[in-house]
């Protein structure tokens, strides 16, 4: 049974003569991470701002748990948590003040446990401007989830973060989803979307060009599966053997790389051939086309 938390239908928004979003529709189910992808200027931020009640749509319908964001801001306030793209807090506000400030406006007690969980507890008296980008992002996330909102909006949450902070934030997002939160993740980081999102919608010039799971989206493209093989005696480098379903072959250092439309027969033939030549497999990797490759394919077509 459908457990719809958020729905957008024929949503349209223009700024003067410029149409930023042109009649898009999508739905987000409870407990999923939904990736809203697109290049800069695709309409992601406009869509989020209208869902957050910051702007009013020019047309169409938006509902978050049956609440209309543009007409019922009071009801919306405790349903959503928002980590803004730019972590917007007054520069001289301390971590502790920020937690007290926002929790008070949401009518809940300050969540110092969240600050501990996000390793911010020792920075209670540190001013926002003195925090690193990673810590600012963590604080913004702590403030967004402090009132336990069922719907969370994350706008480029890992932009500017180092690998460790990024990984920690991904773990936290997964934990939140497992605890029942629904997350709308706006990003142009395809690797992040592919790793984190259960469903994605790709926006281009204000329109949804495709939706589905990352696997469904990559499967619908013309992209080939990449098979990389390394053997002890590099027998594949020496003979120009042609394998089934292979469309392109490359040799890069000790690896022979094959782009295939059907990885099963290709891999099977490769293993048989290497064995028959008296060589030994050292490494074999099969990689399906990435969401990034599919995204580039779509954007180039558009």
């Amino acid at each position, binding site marked *: 049974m459908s457990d719809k938390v958020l729905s957008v239908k024929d949503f349209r928004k223009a*700024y*003067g003569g410029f149409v930023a979003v042109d009649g898009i529709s999508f739905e987000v189910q409870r407990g999923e991470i939904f990736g809203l992808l697109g290049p800069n200027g695709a309409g992601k931020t406009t869509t989020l701002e209208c869902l*957050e*009640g*910051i*702007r*009013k749509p020019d047309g169409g319908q938006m509902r978050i748990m049956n609440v209309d964001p543009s007409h019922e*801001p*009071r009801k919306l*306030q*405790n349903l*959503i948590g*928002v980590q*803004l793209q*730019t972590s*917007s*807090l*007054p*520069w*001289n*506000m301390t971590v502790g*003040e920020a937690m*007290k*400030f*926002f929790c*008070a*406006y*949401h*009518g809940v007690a300050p969540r110092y446990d969240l600050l501990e969980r996000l390793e911010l507890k020792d920075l209670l008296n540190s001013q926002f401007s003195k925090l690193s980008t990673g810590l600012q992002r963590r604080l913004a996330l702590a*403030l967004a989830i402090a009132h336990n909102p069922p719907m969370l909006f994350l706008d480029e949450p890992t932009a500017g973060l180092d690998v460790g902070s990024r990984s920690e934030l991904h773990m936290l997002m997964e934990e939140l989803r497992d605890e029942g939160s629904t997350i709308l993740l706006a990003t142009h980081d395809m690797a992040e979307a592919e790793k984190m999102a259960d469903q994605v919608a790709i926006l281009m010039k204000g329109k949804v060009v495709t939706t589905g799971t990352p696997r469904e989206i990559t499967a619908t493209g013309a992209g080939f599966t990449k098979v990389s093989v390394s053997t002890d005696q590099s027998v594949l480098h020496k003979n120009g053997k042609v394998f089934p379903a292979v469309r392109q072959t490359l040799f890069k250092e000790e690896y022979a790389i094959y782009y295939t439309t059907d990885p099963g027969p290709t891999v099977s033939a490769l293993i048989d051939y290497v064995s028959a030549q008296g060589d030994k497999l050292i490494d074999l990797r099969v990689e399906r086309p990435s969401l990034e490759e599919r995204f580039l394919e779509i954007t180039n077509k558009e």
Partner: protein
Amino acid sequence: MTAFTNHFTYEFKTGLRNPSLLMMNYLFPLGFYAMMGLIMTKVNPGFTQLLIPAMVVFAAMTSTILGLPGPLVELREAGVFRSFKINGVPVPSILAIPTLTTIFHALIVATIIALTGAPLFGGVAPTNWTAFILVTLVAVFTFGAIGTLIGVVAASSRGTVLYSQLIFLPSMLLGGMMMPISSLPASVRPISMLLPTAHVMQAYTGLAYGQGTVTNPVSALVILAISGVLAFGLASYLFNWDSRNNVRRGHPLLALLVLVPYLVGMFLK
């Protein structure tokens, strides 16, 4: 109430923690007061009559007209008001709390000046302290509301400096702070009566010091109070959550309506 208390406490601390605001709220007005008290009262002994009210008005103007608008513009430009909106901080709190805390800082400095002006520099103390307190409260409120209005309508930090100086500099020269309005040439008086400062000084002179004034001091006080309420109402009406939002409720020039009580006052006498 907790939200209001937290917000108020934070904003009050900001007035001390932010070096620019500390300068505008305390260091600049108190430093200028000390300088005027030490030098001006010696150069012009007649200035002792004006020292306390003029320095209270100066302190109120530096913290409100010069100090208050800048942070409002900076927060709007940085997107802080957007995050406030998303988290349910209402417009009245966004505007009223910084205004109130600034008024609070201005009143602390006004108290210091009022209590030390006579013993330290020979300033003439008010003859009617109740009237002095009333005029001070109305004046600080009105300046605070005008400062808030400037912060709302100014498109940038540079804009706030321009608008603030349009009020501050003429007030210093023509507002009756350096010399009584009765000493100004008759041709200049109408211009001075467009300035809130002139009305504050008239109200102080007539009500707190019991001396003769150019205009009715009660009318001056009423005009001030009306313009303060009007300025705050206009600030709330013209408030924009962010600079990217091109949907405005009214044109910024509507802010000029704040001059209406002063224009009407010119015909009242």
